[in-house]
């Protein structure tokens, strides 16, 4: 079993992202949506700790674009997905866990 963890809160506002990362089992994935996309910005305080190698990390492109980061450089191992990609991730992983 591998889990898709969805995080929607900015790590600068809530502890949700680090609380998720500290529990998520290896082999799963983290999908950042809504204000959580603020985590991935290069040079920001959270971009580095996201890339643990334990989970794949995805970020929802339309939420990134909404906040002015459509063209922003991201750490190499972070993948952009659109809503179709979001749907595909839900089907590819065995279980979905939303962290608020």
């Amino acid at each position: 079993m591998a889990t898709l963890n969805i995080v929607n809160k900015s790590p600068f506002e809530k502890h949700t992202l680090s609380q998720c990362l500290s529990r998520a089992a290896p082999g799963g994935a983290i999908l950042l949506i809504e204000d959580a996309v603020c985590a991935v910005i290069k040079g920001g305080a959270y971009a580095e700790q996201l890339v643990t190698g334990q989970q794949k990390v995805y970020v929802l492109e339309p939420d990134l674009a909404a906040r002015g980061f459509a063209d922003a450089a991201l750490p190499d191992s972070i993948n952009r997905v659109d809503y179709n990609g979001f749907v595909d991730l839900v089907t590819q992983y065995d279980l979905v866990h939303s962290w608020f």
Partner: protein
Amino acid sequence: MKIAVVVNEGPYQHQAADSAWHFVSAALARGHEINRVFFYHDGVNNGSRLTTPPQDDRHIQQRWSELARQHNLDLVLCVAACQRRGLVDADEKKRHGKDADNIADGFRISGLGQLIEASVEADRVVSFGD
């Protein structure tokens, strides 16, 4: 694949209601089945037909109702959450002696059992909240 969706927040205040709608739309477009959208907590506020958002803004309730009409979606508002927040259909109106109802087309009010049932029957459950 069969996917159940849970919405825990009302319209406009948080993005959760938007994200859920976009996700459901994309899943349907990709050929998946959404066996139920269950609105819990403030999520039941998505189902009020009395909203009039600004003309240049999206109409969240109408967007749900339209999607339900096109895809025969089952949009269920949790009855206990509705009672705390003032979402009323014809039955609830009668039962609690209210003088008005406010539920929109395509939504129905039912119990929490509908969340469990949808979760059991679905291959995946995806929640949106705050």
